[in-house]
């Protein structure tokens, strides 16, 4: 295992120290609870937005804290959901009197820990808490009898869009509805060229030969649905875009925010090549790219690979997407 780390047990702690050192102007860090807060949290009268999850997906979520996006992010161990104590502390810390929304990616651990936090917060009284779960990964079959689909790329877009709505002063119920609408209108699919290595495990989560790729991989190095021979970018794009387009479905005349995401070990030059292929496929399908995002925003440690997320976007979503945001990971308009 080759990584720029010290003791594998200290990875999350030290990354938070780094985030703090680099972005003091925008965030502050509660190291005991491993929470990244917006520097001016709680913002009075504004719905507080909290997310969190296992670490190893940077800049998500700590890098999305700031004006126009999250009020706090709870950092779990690498690929391990944070614990309810963190979410309760964060809920208190961002409560500006207008309630708090928990943004949860659909993983059993995340869902259960956030649930326990919400139950405890409710018992604690005071703060009104709503939750929204993202589950946009079409690689996983949706079913009532399973854990359902995973939350992946849409989470990034959702945190931005819903963050803008909260910044406008909208009430909690409306903010939560908007969050569900964003999730319902977005779909993703990912693939990996290499595995990632969880620091504490010390070896790659899965073995992938020099000639294979993993299609439908998760952001925790969960093996995907299918192992296929490596293919040109053009074919990889089709393998990702087609199931996404079919799932919602998106079609002729739709307008989308198109997001090509790097898994952590894939450089930008490859993501641009992928974006070109994706935009060609969308054009062929009659889908217009209203806005685009290209980069490594929801990563899986040093895994090489990418994911494609499409969010069907009406004028309101685009307007909220364009609204000012000032976080370590996404910034514009300010």
């Amino acid at each position, binding site marked *: 295992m080759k990584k720029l780390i010290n003791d594998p047990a200290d990875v999350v702690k030290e990354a938070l120290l780094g985030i703090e050192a680099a972005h003091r102007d925008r965030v502050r860090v509660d190291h005991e609870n491993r929470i990244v807060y917006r520097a001016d949290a709680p913002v009075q009268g504004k719905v507080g937005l909290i997310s969190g999850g296992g670490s190893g997906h940077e800049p998500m979520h700590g890098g999305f804290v700031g004006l126009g996006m999250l009020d706090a992010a709870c950092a779990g161990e690498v690929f391990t*959901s944070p*614990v*309810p104590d963190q979410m309760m502390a964060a809920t208190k810390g961002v409560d500006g009197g207008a309630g708090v929304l928990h943004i949860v990616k659909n993983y059993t651990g995340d869902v259960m820990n956030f649930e326990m936090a919400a139950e405890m917060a409710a018992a604690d009284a005071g703060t009104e808490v709503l939750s929204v779960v993202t589950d946009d990964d079409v*690689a996983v079959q949706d079913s009532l009898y399973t*854990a359902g689909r995973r939350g992946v790329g849409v989470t990034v877009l959702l945190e931005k869009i819903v963050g803008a709505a909260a910044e406008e002063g909208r009430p909690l119920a409306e903010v939560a509805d908007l969050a569900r609408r964003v999730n319902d209108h977005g779909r993703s699919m990912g693939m990996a060229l290499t595995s990632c290595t969880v620091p504490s495990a010390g070896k790659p989560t899965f073995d992938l030969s020099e000639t294979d790729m993993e299609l439908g991989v998760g952001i925790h190095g969960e093996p995907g649905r299918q192992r296929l021979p490596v293919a040109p970018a053009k074919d990889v794009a089709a393998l990702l875009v087609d199931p996404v387009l079919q799932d919602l479905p998106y079609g002729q005349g739709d307008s989308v925010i198109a997001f090509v995401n790097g898994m952590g070990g894939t450089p930008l030059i490859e993501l641009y090549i992928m974006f070109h292929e994706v935009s060609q496929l969308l054009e062929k399908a009659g889908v217009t790219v209203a806005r685009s995002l290209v980069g490594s925003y929801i990563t899986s440690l040093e895994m090489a690979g990418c994911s494609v997320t499409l969010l069907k976007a009406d004028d309101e979503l685009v307007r909220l997407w364009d609204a000012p945001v000032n976080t370590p990971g996404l910034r514009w308009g300010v």
Partner: protein
Amino acid sequence: MAVDVRGLTGWLRAFADSISEHAAELTQLDAAIGDADHGTNMKRGMQAVTTMLDDSEFETADALLKKVGMTLVSSVGGASGPLYGTFFLRAGTALADTTEIDAADFGAALRAGVEGMVARGKAELGDKTLYDAWAPALTAYDDAGADGDLGAALAAAAAAAARGRDETTPMVARKGRASYLGERSAGHQDPGATSTTLLLESAAASLG
């Protein structure tokens, strides 16, 4: 033999040791169908429990088990944190009014713990989760412990858990992270069922 605070503490310490010893194996099992952290998660949790035990004195079994549950909830995260945490919280709660804990009381506590865990995780039999070790273990416990023999009950529960664990191998996961693999999850032993078996084996060894 009745179950007391001392016995429970011994069980928890034995479980912590067993987890430590098997952490890499649990993580490897999780790598195959999950995200390669189950061993690390359980080890972190049981180390927190060990530290807590070193620093605390408990008067009653229910106070001890609830504190263990809280400690796990607060230190593990992931799926196993709320599940193992809820188990101990509920098992402790079930013992709240019991002073002399016999085999039947302890069995009831285990069952309450598992019921809490199932309420939290919604796992059903055959979903390829730790419940597939627990379900046969509870039945075996009740059968073998019907006449009040705790040792026999726990030994039977541990053996049944191990069989349940083994039976997870061919299953297609329907809950937890392994479910994302669909058919590809078959052929791999469930990590949670494996750590559950360690929990019951530790119980058989230290409480039995």
